[in-house]
């Protein structure tokens, strides 16, 4: 038992190390940024790079699984110098939509009892911000870009006869404000330009701007700039957050081989998740619906069979409780109900239908390492079960 824990934790750590073997820094950073605002719960559904996990740490059967997106596998091969033809964006995106999972299950005596392999594919992924935003979002961002362009031109007109020192100082102040995303410490000249009626009138008269934004919106933006807010940055972050809360729907067929009974089992699972609420200033809350059907052998029958046919459906809400400054999730709580139905043969002492109340508490302990703890309560029989696990969303 102890050896299994140590080996599993070492495997998780080596998996974390494996991420560093991807030498393409561009790809690592892009994927990291893409996933930075997704909940840990949605990252468990499908990974963009790698995910490793050990389930049921305190149970009699322990399962280790490792998931890798096709994008992550391809990136590792590139890092090892394997020559593949150049990828374009469409190919990269297709690779991110699929992930493969392999798993090992061991018993209390450290004997590997089962091997499993599965594929997860996206049926619907509206969270992907590498695809072009909707036209409404794109036009608003481009309007803000035009406003900043107009502001640039006005700054230049205002300082055209100034000394080189003033021009350099004003330019440095502007670039520093862009880098820090904070307009509260602008050079006095920049403030004068922002507050000037010339700038405001230029924006109000700009066709690219007034065709997208209302007069009130333009005035609010100009006022926000004057108050020290980087309005373009605020709009961009708001748009990204809105996309992080959009739906994700996946399907995962899995095959498991039981080496002790010399028989396979087959399952298919589908998961749907979507953000709730329109107020993006609040921490994200998402709904999750999950359904799974399995064909496995009835262990009471010594002959090969597929008489075990469990079906389960769960519905719940996952809430991010704690975020860091970059809006990355650090602690989550999911509360869900689960219904299990046995279509096949029923073992002694088991019920055809089982309804449970459940919760999963996730805490981020270190970088991409998470500890999810699941409690299952059977109200009919008064049973309470706990499942402890450890997961690492590598590069996510």
């Amino acid at each position: 038992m102890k050896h299994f824990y140590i080996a599993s934790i070492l495997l998780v750590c080596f998996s974390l190390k494996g991420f560093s073997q991807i030498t393409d820094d561009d790809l690592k950073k892009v994927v990291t940024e893409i996933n930075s605002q997704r909940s840990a719960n949605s990252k468990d559904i499908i990974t963009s790079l790698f995910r490793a996990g050990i389930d049921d740490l305190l149970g009699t059967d322990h399962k280790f699984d490792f998931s890798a997106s096709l994008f992550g596998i391809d990136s590792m091969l590139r890092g090892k110098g394997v020559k593949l033809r150049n990828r374009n964006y469409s190919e990269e995106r297709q690779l991110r939509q699929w992930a493969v999972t392999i798993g090992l299950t061991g018993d209390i005596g450290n004997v590997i009892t089962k091997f499993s392999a599965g594929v997860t594919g996206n049926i619907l992924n509206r969270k992907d911000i590498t695809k072009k935003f909707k036209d409404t979002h794109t036009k608003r961002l481009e309007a803000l870009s035009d406003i900043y362009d107009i502001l640039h031109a006005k700054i230049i007109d205002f300082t055209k006869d100034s000394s080189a020192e003033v021009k350099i100082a004003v330019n440095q102040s502007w670039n520093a404000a862009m880098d820090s995303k904070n307009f509260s410490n602008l050079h006095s000249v920049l403030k004068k330009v922002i507050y000037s009626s010339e700038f405001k009138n230029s924006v109000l008269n700009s066709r690219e701007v007034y065709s997208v934004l209302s007069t009130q919106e333009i005035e609010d933006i100009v006022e926000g700039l004057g108050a020290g807010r980087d309005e373009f940055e605020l709009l961009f972050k708001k748009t990204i957050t809105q996309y992080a809360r959009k739906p994700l729907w996946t399907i995962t067929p899995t095959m498991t081989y039981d080496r002790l009974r010399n028989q396979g089992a087959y399952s298919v699972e589908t998961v749907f998740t979507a953000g709730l609420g329109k107020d993006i200033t609040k921490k994200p809350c998402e709904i999750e619906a999950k359904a799974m059907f399995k064909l496995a052998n009835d262990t009471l029958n010594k002959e090969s069979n597929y008489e075990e046919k469990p079906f389960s459906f769960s519905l719940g809400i996952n809430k991010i409780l704690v975020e860091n400054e970059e809006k990355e999730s650090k602690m989550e709580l999911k509360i869900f109900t689960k219904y299990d139905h046995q279509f096949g043969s029923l073992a002694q002492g088991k019920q055809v239908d089982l309804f449970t109340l459940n919760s999963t508490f996730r805490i981020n302990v270190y970088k991409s390492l998470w500890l999810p703890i699941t409690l299952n309560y059977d109200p009919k029989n008064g049973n309470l079960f706990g499942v402890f696990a450890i997961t690492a969303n590598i590069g996510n």
Partner: protein
Amino acid sequence: MLHKCVVARSFQLSNFCIVNKKPGSRKRNRVGGKKLVMKKITIEGKSTGTTNNFVKVHIYRPSSHSNPYDHRKSYHGECNFKEILNDLIPQTEYYIFFSGYTTGKFVLKISGDFECIDPMVTIPIVRTIENGKFSPSYIIRTN
């Protein structure tokens, strides 16, 4: 004026091109009857990992100055472009500024026959933006 739009159309994406040069610019390449050797700058942009990009490139010299200049160009989509401007007057100050956004990684590079009047900025100018909006500004003087 038209040749710039033709150059723009050879690039991958749908763009619009505004080239608005003030009157008198046709004679800019002559001073005291002598033909000037015009200076060239190259502005390159390269995006990675996303097609969700937008950048507006603006090279500007105010109309109140001699030899005014106002060249604007916008790019959408994958935003891999190379803009060559070879009609800049020697020993003249120009402003180059950008505004846009990317959900992946975007690298801007400016090179050519110029120096930056801000001594903190090295030539060629290279700026990398990752998943964010950007609006950098540079003041250059042609050689």
